[in-house]
């Protein structure tokens, strides 16, 4: 599918989506509330995006952006889905019932950025200690003991 066809298809699923074609792949920015239905449709619909290869979050100081890299083992076309979440109370719905790899990846984002995933089956810290305070990958995180900034 060309980018135009994908845009047309996604517009029928999420009319409010914004597109960015400057990078290597088509970037699609949606509202956090519209993310879950769109993801479910991408997995089961005609695009059959069965391979979620990267889930991460980026701190832009004013807001957090969830980034999902999707691909398919049949047609090998990659797209990027993004959703901006509020930095003070970040909440987004989990996708781990669609792709099971998301369970661990979302747990990592939860502890590093503090994003809460609703309906996640087991949202606990994965890498950090249970009593760790703060979200280390946010830009305003300061650790006076273990200096990791230069």
């Amino acid at each position, binding site marked *: 599918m060309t980018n135009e066809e994908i845009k047309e298809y996604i517009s029928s699923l999420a009319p409010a989506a914004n597109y960015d074609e400057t*990078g290597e792949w088509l970037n699609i920015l949606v509202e956090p509330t519209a993310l879950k239905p769109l993801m479910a449709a991408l997995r089961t619909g005609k695009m059959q995006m069965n391979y979620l*290869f*990267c889930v991460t979050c980026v701190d832009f100081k004013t807001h957090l952006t969830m980034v999902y890299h999707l691909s398919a083992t049949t047609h090998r076309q990659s797209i990027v889905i993004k959703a901006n979440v509020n930095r003070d109370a970040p909440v987004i719905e989990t996708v781990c019932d669609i792709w*099971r790899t998301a369970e*661990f990846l979302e747990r990592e984002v939860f502890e590093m950025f503090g994003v809460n995933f609703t309906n996640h089956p087991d949202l606990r810290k994965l*890498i950090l200690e249970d009593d760790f305070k703060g979200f280390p990958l946010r830009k305003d995180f300061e650790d006076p003991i273990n200096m990791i900034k230069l």
Partner: protein
Amino acid sequence: MYNQTEIIKDTSELGADGELVINMGPQHPATHGVLHLVVTLNGETIKKIEPHLGFIHRSIEKMCESLTYRQFIYVTSRMDYLSSHINNLGCALLVEKGMQIEVPDRAKYIRVILSELTRIASHELWLGAMAMDLGAFTPFFYAFREREMITDIMEDTCGARLTMNYIVPGGLMYDLHPDFQKKVKAFITQFKSKVTEYEDLVTNNIIFQSRTKGVGILSAEDAISYGCTGPVARASGVSCDIRKIYPYEVYDKVEFEEVIETAGDSFARYIVRVKEMNQSIRIIEQLIDNIPEGDFVAKTKNVLKLPKGEFYSRVETARGEFGVYVVSEGGTTPHRIKFRSPGFSNLSVLNHIAAGGMIGDLMASMGTLDLVIPDIDR
């Protein structure tokens, strides 16, 4: 955290079944690193496995945010230390893609040869360690005999045996050692004459076969859903070799087969890795006599600045798809960097393939996933 051994539910709640929680690791001889598994057992049957990570978490992604595009490559050698060349290559490819640097042909050929040598060394170590996990001590020495030759070649050319840091944006740090081709050819001859010993010692061993066949079965759909890549997914019949799908460097010019098995059990994962070593030898043989003359590094500016935007590059390490995702604001350091490590996704499938099996089979399932803990913890 649980106590060393504690019974959390008494038998009255579960009828005749009891539930026992044991801790494997973080200092277990078969976890090859500090991985802590909390295993819930019912008799000898595994009910659930819960990995506890982070014993060697160094926050590499945060560290990289304050390192320049020349510096951050050296940290990635410390993630998957058995594929350090290929990690370096993934990062160098990203910087070259972002800045549109044209790499000389000589550097491309050498990068591929070294990547394949790294892959063989990694699989050799895995073979020895995996056989040792299952109680066979001898294959470890056989595998290390060949691996030693590769580390010697690496030491001559790169100056290091494990964390090479030889690949830089634009090419290589310095030219090849004069003895490189001679030593690689000696290694190929040695490897080809000895690889049949693995077949006799391990592959055709009836004890090894009965411990791995039908153990830890992973279906193709689950392999994709869990994001498994590399030999783990290829043993389940999923075609996922980045060298074939998105060829980088000179992989589109060489002939090799993507090894695919369909059984999806521990034995299939073993077979895939052994066959992959032979394919790597095939790639090296095609390139070793044809390394073009010329520069080994492209001329680049002293200070590298990536344009504003987002970049992603991926390479095939010995464990699967390694991805680097960089968000750049146009400066000399990345705004955010994310490493998609293959071991992390491969670990997440462990509960799925081992639950319902016997505790004795856990070693076979886990050993064939080929987990490298620094790659998972980052």
